């Protein structure tokens, strides 16, 4: 009687262990990055920071102004699709800029015992920017310009060709403010051009 009860009691934890193991295995099996495909709460504030409405200017002119602004900032245009209102540019960082980031990054890596997100990647070697124009939904018209800057990391592949291995958006609000000021200035120049 006692033996049966003891056996029954030992079955409970065993079942729980099997169930837990099953759940762990199921969890490991799924490596799908749901969070990478979901809109986070920060995305709305990012969108606001990265978007500016421009009125009294047609889309082709606005796109031209955006391209000119990027060129002024030393960006190479890598993708341009005027019908979609999209322009993508990249700008390599100079060796001096990359090297100047190393002391601060090393300090951060040291203070976090190597757990800083960029510790294993090193300083970013390139910036990228995506500009997308969209007709405004508001009654007053105009076009919304959304600008997103990224920092990127490359590694030289076996054939000596650098390949993109990591990238992340730059959240700095001041950067976007400065960019929109530059676009504003370029629009004013465009309007007063002979």
């Amino acid at each position, binding site marked *: 009687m006692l033996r049966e009860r003891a056996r029954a009691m030992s079955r409970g934890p065993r079942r729980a262990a099997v169930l837990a193991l099953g759940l762990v295995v199921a969890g490991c099996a799924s490596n799908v990055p749901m969070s*990478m*495909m979901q*809109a986070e709460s920060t995305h709305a504030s990012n969108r606001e920071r990265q978007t500016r409405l421009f009125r009294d200017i047609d889309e082709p002119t606005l796109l031209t102004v955006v391209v000119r602004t990027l060129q002024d900032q030393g960006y190479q245009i890598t993708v341009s699709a005027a*019908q*979609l209102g999209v322009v993508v540019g990249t700008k390599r960082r100079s060796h001096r800029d990359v090297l100047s980031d190393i002391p601060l990054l090393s300090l951060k890596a040291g203070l976090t015992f190597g757990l800083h997100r960029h510790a294993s*990647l090193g300083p970013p070697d390139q910036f990228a920017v995506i500009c*997308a124009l969209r007709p405004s939904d508001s009654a007053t018209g105009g076009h919304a310009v959304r600008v997103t800057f990224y920092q990127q990391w490359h590694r030289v592949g076996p054939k000596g060709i650098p390949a993109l291995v*990591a990238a992340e958006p730059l959240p700095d609000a001041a950067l976007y403010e400065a960019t929109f000021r530059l676009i504003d200035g370029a629009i004013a120049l465009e309007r007063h051009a002979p």
Partner: protein
Amino acid sequence: MNPSRLLGVVALAACAAGLAACATPVDQGVLTAPESQLRLRSIQSRVFDTGDRQKVLRGVVATLQDLEFMIEAADPGLGVVTARKFAIRAGSALPNDLMLTVTVHPRGERQTVVRANAEYNRKAIEEPAVYQSFFNSLGRSLFLAGREVD
């Protein structure tokens, strides 16, 4: 010919034929089986009730930008946008890499079909929930709800 020698030659030829049959085809993985294709197409596609292809394409770009993807290629003529996103993990040398190709094409005059196919760390994603999440975001951007393709 000596019968035992003949037997040896036949055995050798049979072995060679067997090995040739067992050899791994070089094109393994280049094409997908038809049934798998159909299932994937179904989970990767949604129909939107608008004939404005440009609007949908711009919505795709806005959604990708919202989800922090980098646009790597865009062809409005073909209706193709390719984008990529990384997740940097602390202590890991290589971040997770998510690649997405979205195509937009008209279906009749009043509908547009959007198809997305994603790859995570160079492996095709077949989980419907991932695509559902993308189409939910796209629907919000377009103020339209996507339906599964019949």
